[in-house]
């Protein structure tokens, strides 16, 4: 086996163009795909017309002045605004296809906000206008959902502000103190102090004075009001944020997006190099007509397969490790977890190499082996990268089963676990070990048929 390995390395050394293209292909495909799948979708371009003059951006909320533009900024967290000078221009941008949608803030929005806070239930709520391009339902839905989500955030923030003001006013009503009005600041007695005053007044009245019963009624009312208003603040807090979100992970790892991108890029590089080399170098034995000569007593077929797996896995490991070293310049690769990700790289390389050898055992020449490797690699990578929730339950179940039959998904999981804090490393490595054995067995069976021809 040693001499066959040396022979194959000599052949690779004498095919620098082929080897260069293979390595470059793996890296050039791996990097953008890895980062592409992990990058958040780009912000949709939305035409934005703000009809509110800069000086009129604020409205009064109780004693506070609130800047409405602060809430409008929330809209731009997920969209790329194209600022325009009129409502018509915003609509034209959508029609021309320059923007996916348009958001129009009417000039009287602060006045509407003012009215809404002063005359709740009577005045119309403040209204923004949103326009969509209807030529592509997918784009329309995307923009619609993005704008709605951000508007909900802005609404929530604004209602939080209103709640704070209302809670402050209730505090004054309860405990008393200064209260700012447009006409000036007044000192409010407050219910608690009012109750104290009333109790004092009642004590000073003669025991049979008929005013005592009337005062007692007012004191009782003050008690009820104090008790009720004591509950008001927590209730207002609950209204401001009625639902609390608690995030839990039930499957998959907890690694970072950047770490996952590195794992995906390395997995793609491993796949291309190992599958293509494993398939190609075994098919080369047949193309050179040397296979028959080798297996008629010089080398056992299983040893020949093991040699090809070792060769392809070593080369793929070297390329993927080099890629990780390159990526480490931009995204830190954790050296303290090196044994974990090196194990993932090694077993991933072995799994892909065994798959490549199985492909090589089915084909007669290098060209067919390469073509079959490409035809197989691209869909298994694509399927393994389909996130849950993007397809129906049955389709995702089928995708999971198919992905489990190939080394891409377990290699990605193992590398993600090794490079990031994600869990499931041992399971993924065991899965890869099982797949390597299975593909070697399939290759051995295919070679039996091959030798008989």
């Amino acid at each position: 086996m040693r001499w066959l390995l040396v022979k194959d390395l000599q052949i690779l050394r004498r095919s620098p163009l082929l080897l260069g293209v293979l390595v470059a292909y793996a890296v050039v495909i791996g990097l953008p795909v890895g980062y592409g799948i992990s990058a958040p979708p780009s912000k949709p371009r939305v035409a934005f017309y703000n009809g509110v003059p800069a000086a009129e951006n604020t409205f009064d909320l109780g004693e506070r002045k609130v800047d409405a533009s602060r809430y409008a900024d929330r809209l731009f967290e997920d969209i790329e605004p194209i600022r325009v000078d009129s409502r018509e221009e915003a609509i034209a941008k959508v029609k021309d296809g320059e923007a996916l949608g348009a958001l129009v803030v009417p000039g009287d929005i602060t006045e509407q906000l003012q009215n809404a806070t002063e005359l709740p239930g009577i005045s119309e709520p403040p209204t923004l206008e949103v326009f969509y391009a209807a030529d592509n339902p997918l784009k329309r839905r995307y923009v619609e959902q993005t704008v709605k989500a951000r508007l909900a955030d802005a609404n929530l923030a604004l209602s939080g502000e209103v709640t704070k003001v209302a809670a402050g006013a209730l505090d004054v009503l309860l405990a008393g103190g200064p209260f700012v009005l447009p006409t000036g600041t007044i000192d409010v007695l407050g219910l608690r102090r009012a109750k104290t005053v009333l109790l004092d007044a009642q004590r000073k009245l003669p025991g049979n004075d008929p005013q005592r019963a009337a005062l007692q009624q007012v004191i009782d009312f003050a008690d009820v009001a104090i008790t009720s208003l004591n509950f008001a603040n927590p209730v207002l807090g609950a209204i401001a944020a009625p639902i609390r979100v608690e995030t839990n992970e039930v499957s998959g790892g907890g690694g970072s997006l950047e770490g996952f991108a590195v794992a995906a890029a390395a997995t793609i590089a491993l796949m291309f190099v190992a599958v293509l080399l494993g398939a190609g170098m075994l098919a080369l034995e047949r193309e050179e007509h040397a296979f028959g000569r080798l297996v008629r007593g010089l080398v056992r077929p299983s040893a020949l397969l093991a040699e090809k797996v070792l060769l392809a896995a070593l080369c793929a490991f070297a390329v993927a490790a080099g890629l990780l070293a390159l990526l480490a310049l931009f995204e830190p690769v954790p050296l303290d977890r090196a044994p974990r990700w090196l194990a993932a790289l090694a077993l991933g390389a072995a799994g892909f190499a065994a798959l490549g050898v199985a492909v090589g055992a089915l084909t007669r020449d290098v060209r067919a082996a390469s073509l079959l490797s490409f035809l197989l690699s691209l869909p298994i990578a694509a399927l393994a990268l389909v996130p849950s929730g993007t397809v129906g339950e049955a389709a995702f179940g089928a995708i999971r089963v198919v992905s489990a039959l190939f080394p891409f998904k377990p290699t990605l999981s193992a590398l993600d676990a090794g490079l990031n804090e994600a869990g499931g490393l041992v399971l993924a490595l065991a899965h890869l070990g099982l797949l390597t054995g299975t593909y070697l067995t399939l290759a051995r069976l295919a070679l039996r048929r091959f030798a008989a021809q």
Partner: protein
Amino acid sequence: MRADAVSKSYGQREALKAVSFAAEAGEVVAVIGPNGAGKTTLLSILAGLQAPSSGTVSVRPAEVGWVPQQPAIYSKLSVAENLRLFARLERVADHDAAVERMLALTGLEARADDELGRLSGGNQQRVNIAVGLLASPSVLLLDEPSSSLDPRQRERLWELISSLAREDGSTVVFSTHNVGEAERYADRVLVLADGELLFEGSPAEMVRAVGSPERDFEAAFVRFLHERGH
């Protein structure tokens, strides 16, 4: 070397039907017959490439030098690297000496470091044969060894093969489509048709067996097959 009642079936098709023959040391035997007669199947069973469905072969693959029809060597390696690789795989004791011996035998000393893919078809075939001879086998099997060679290269090839039988006492069995070559270089011919061994003897015996006025071996061979429905 002896083959006893060797048969081979692929599913329902019988490629070889109980073929038996023996070849002595120093003897050159040609296996001839029309296309699909089973020549390559017989040689590949004798070489140990595949097992017979029934019957036995007296020699082990390790004792046999195998020269397939197409050069079974690596075009990206040099002549010497190919020979050295196979010498190591054959576990030849002194592989460097074996490589030198084969380079001398094939007359390719000057091309030892040339990549095989840059050599002519004839020279590649000489390296192919040299690989088959590396372990000094007692039996040499060649499948259509001259099919890709020009007349001059063919002449040199047969000189080499004849000298192996004559001087080293090797048993040589080769298949060929070229009936003239069989007549010229073989001591004995085996005629196969549809997997059946129809004739075993010298070319002169074949001519006599046909019993026709033709004294030409090729014409006698064609007439022999025709009379037996092939």
